[in-house]
């Protein structure tokens, strides 16, 4: 039996999305049950692949079919440890987002349909090994996210949604140029075939720049990040979770899957520049997060800071740095996912995200308060929890690399600043005496606890036993570095 597993994983949610949409709001209860089932099946399939995954082999479960032979375009899906890590994140967070938004009352059919459509795009991006396919999924992601923000968002949702859409589109136009340039140069759209093609360094340099713009907006790297806080603040909880948890990783994934293996000479030339921007993102994001008065905005800026560690690791181009980058991507996905879920759960009850209006969660709602504190400590990189693994490895890699020591030290200071904004948030929101808004709210429901528990377990599991994650990422990292010519 040779099922096209990857195709199923990508397109099953599409089937679900269409079904849920066709059922309509009148049969939304059935619709959301279908949405949940589809996302559970997807996650089970991903879990099954995780168990079957052979860490000593490269690309697995590969499906490669001629698509447009005239242009050497193939329908090419593949899975390595890095893709797997990201697909786990995407499938898990989609399911949790569906469960967390179970009670959505406004246009539920479209809501669950859009969440599933988003999963199609996210899974597709991480599995596509052909540029055209990759680009289609990349752009596909924008559509459901646009609607999630624009239709279910806060007061400034239109502005935020359009800004998110246009900003990313602006970046991806450059990416498209890069893709076309690469195609014209190599005559193929196959991402894996292009790797190690030995392209002319000066050609590499500007193609790298084009991809850089596309990916940097998505990550986002300072100063291309300002769409992020707006999008996060206006987005509904589930969309924020997926935006921070998965969509941002598409950018850094692009660097790892495309920029580094295909354009290694350019990557070496650009590395100091990227490291500098990474260090600035880390410290700048942390400082701006510290000054925020809105919980969601604070977490949004913390993402800018954390994603800086991803870019620092990538810029180091060392095994430690790249593993660290993927580890931060994964950890940030689950930990920031947790934080956004919690902020959303608190918002559902208090109807405010203003930090000054929420306090004393731990006294009044100990489960919510305790998990909030837990997520905060994971976020600030406490050893033993997942956040530490990636940030520490990124720093180790950066220190051992050619990155100027100054930028590494600046980045390390980011660890301290993360503790500052996170603890200052805990101080005001979790600790202290309950504020009026918190006075009579109920604690988390069983459904809400169930959303968070898997994330808590993963955070501890990865944080204690790093290899639970690194056994998948390290082979992928090795092959990236091998494609770069053993750099």
């Amino acid at each position, binding site marked *: 039996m040779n099922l096209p597993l990857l195709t199923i994983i990508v397109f099953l949610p599409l089937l679900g999305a269409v079904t849920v949409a066709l059922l309509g709001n009148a049969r939304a209860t059935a619709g959301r049950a279908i949405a949940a089932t589809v996302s559970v099946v997807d996650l089970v399939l991903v879990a099954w692949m995780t168990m079957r995954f052979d860490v000593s082999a490269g690309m697995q479960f590969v499906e490669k079919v001629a698509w447009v032979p005239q242009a050497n375009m193939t329908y090419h899906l593949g899975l390595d440890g890095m893709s797997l890590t990201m697909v786990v994140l995407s499938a898990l967070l989609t399911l949790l987002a569906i469960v967390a938004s179970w009670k959505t009352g406004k246009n539920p059919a479209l809501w669950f349909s859009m969440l599933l459509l988003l999963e199609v795009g996210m899974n597709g991006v991480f599995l596509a090994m052909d540029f055209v396919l990759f*680009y289609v999924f990349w752009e596909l992601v924008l559509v459901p996210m646009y609607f999630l923000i624009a239709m279910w968002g806060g007061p400034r949702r239109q502005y935020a949604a359009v*800004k998110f859409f246009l900003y990313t589109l602006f970046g991806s136009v450059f990416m498209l140029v890069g893709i076309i340039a690469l195609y014209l140069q190599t005559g193929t759209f196959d991402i894996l075939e292009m790797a190690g093609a030995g392209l002319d360094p000066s050609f590499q340099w500007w193609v790298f720049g084009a991809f850089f713009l596309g990916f940097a907006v998505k990550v986002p790297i300072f100063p291309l990040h300002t769409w992020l806080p707006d999008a996060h603040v206006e987005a509904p909880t589930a969309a924020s979770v997926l935006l921070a948890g998965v969509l941002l990783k598409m950018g850094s994934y692009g660097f790892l899957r495309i920029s580094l293996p295909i354009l290694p000479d350019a990557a070496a030339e650009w590395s100091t520049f990227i490291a500098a921007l990474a260090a600035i993102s880390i410290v700048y994001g942390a400082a701006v997060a510290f000054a925020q008065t809105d919980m969601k905005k604070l977490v949004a800026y913390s993402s800018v800071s954390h994603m800086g560690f991803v870019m620092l690791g990538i810029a180091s181009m060392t095994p430690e740095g790249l*593993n660290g980058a993927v580890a931060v991507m994964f950890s940030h996905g689950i930990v920031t996912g947790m934080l956004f879920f919690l902020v959303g759960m608190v918002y559902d009850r208090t109807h405010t995200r203003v930090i000054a209006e929420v306090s004393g969660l731990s006294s009044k709602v100990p489960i919510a308060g305790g998990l909030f504190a837990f997520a905060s400590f994971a976020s600030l990189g406490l050893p033993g929890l997942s956040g530490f693994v990636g940030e520490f490895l990124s720093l180790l890699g950066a*220190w051992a690399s050619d990155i100027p020591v100054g930028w590494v030290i600046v980045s390390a200071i980011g660890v301290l600043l993360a503790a500052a904004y996170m*603890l200052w948030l805990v101080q005001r929101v979790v600790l202290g005496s309950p504020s009026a808004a918190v006075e009579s709210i109920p604690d988390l429901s069983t459904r809400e606890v169930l959303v968070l528990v898997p994330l808590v377990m993963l955070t501890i599991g990865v944080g204690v036993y790093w290899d639970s994650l690194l056994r998948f990422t390290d082979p992928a990292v090795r092959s990236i570095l091998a494609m770069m010519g053993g750099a």
Partner: protein
Amino acid sequence: MSMDYVLLVPLLPALAFAVLTPMPRTVRLKLVPLAVGAVFGSLVLSIAAFLAVWPGGQQLEPAWHGVVTIAHIGDRAISLGLALEPMSAVMLLVVTIVGAAVQVYSLGYMHREERIGWYYAALSLFTAAMLVLVLSNDFLGLFMAWEVMGLCSYLLIGFWHEQEAPRLASIKAFLTTKVGDLGFMLALAVIYAEVGVFDFATVLGHDWSAGTATFVALLMLFGAMGKSAQFPLHTWLPDAMAGPTPASALIHAATMVAAGVFLIVRAFPIFEASGIALTVTLWVGLGTALLSGLLAMVQHDIKKVLAYSTISQLGFMFIALGAGSPTVALYHLVTHAYFKSLLFLGAGVIIHAAHTQDMRQMGGLARKLPVTSLTFAAGSLALAGVVPFSGFWSKDEILAVLLHEQQYAAFAIALAAAFVTAFYVARLWFRVFTAPTQQAELHEGHRSMVAPMVVLAAITAVIGFFGPTLGGFLGHGIPWPAFGTAAVSTFAAAAGIMLGWYVYGRRKSVVNTQVIKQRFPHAYGVLVNKYYFDLTYGYFIVGGYTALARGLASLDANVVDGIVNGAARTWRSLAALGWAFDRRVIDGVVNGSASAVRAAGARMRTLQTGSVRGYQTLVAGAVVLFVIWILVKGA
């Protein structure tokens, strides 16, 4: 016999934490005995482990070790290991004895607290982390345990988080120590780049060049200064006294704050390879020991006196390290752990009885709290360095090492610090126990609180006689005190106590300290303002960073995002201009193609309105066109 039971030593309290934490408050409350049982289990196993290592000596092979590889990266592996050798065996006893004493004591001290279950959970996690730290056989594991201890310290300082002072103290403690931790973390990065692994044997056996060794050692020293509250990273520890007193006894007196000293003991060969780092350590210790001792003289809060005293005593340990004797530093660490936790537990009874921490409102407690006053006396004499109490022996060794190394200036400063120590001890004692009674209704502590103090007092009274034994066990000699240094240090201690008695202890003619304050207003001002460290940090670092963060946030909203919005606006205007150009100029000139242009213009207009559907059409169109072009080209 398999010695894997050593693994249980940290595991038992860790399990207690894991069981207690997820429980609801009411269930946790009932599980407190479980936590106490766990630490006693660890204590028993630690004694067994200690006996298994006995008689110690300079063993090369640890009596037991275990290692687990947690990460494979490229062709390298990152492992965490635990090992039982003489030093960790001694530390296991210190941690579990003080830990057990504190947990029993807390049953009485905290029994009215609704969240006592959480308190015990945090205490258990701390104990587990500290036990991992002392057993760690590599710098990474040590660092990870170190950080978890920082978390527990944060949680326990902020135990009464509904009040503002504990809340602020907890965040201050976490962040200040984290400043030091950056140094430790960067040291790990350098070690990794230089050696490639973290285990003690390989790292310490590495052929360190003096320059790299200095770099690593200074980074580690910075980390140790944060954790062990050395100047200028000391300001968090006095504030940390806002936490429950027994937690202060365990964490902020006996164990966690000593972790910095322990780190340097572990990394000592790197410090030796550097040389310069030892000198820096010495002077950090000297400065801290004396300056902090002076601050203890002007505090009125009994816990703050003890906190500054702890900082000062940790300074003494740094002095020993800087002078080149890690064994003596460890010796003082051990004696200090017992007598200082004893003093803190005594302070807890006093605070419970007097309902205040202000010594000016105490007095005459000796008669009301007989057991506490006796045990407190033992601790005080040990701290002051009076024979035969434990502090005398270990402090004497530190002075002897300085003399032996011919560090005469350092010897003089350390001696002055010893004198100051004796003075503030006497000040505390006479004010609290013999000064005129101010309160009528005072009660001795509950049995559960008194018993641990008696045990610690007994240890404090006799442990000094085992110095040479300890030295032999650790594989480095600790000699009996030489008569000369013993005489000098005893003289300093006696002088300090006498002066304290003269000022605070005499029944009839107590010196009016107001006069001293008025005669030396500047000196007194400097001391009560704690050398302006807190003010400076608060104003420049906290204030500066807050202002910077606000400035950057406004820059982000107005400039960085402003450029984005400005670009969007400009584009919109350009599009409008193009539309106008279309309509007026081109439309006017080329009448024939007017309809086509109008259609184009209409398309342009959808662009400027920011309609996303328009853009989607555009992108979809572009992709379709591109695909068609490729097809055509390919064919």
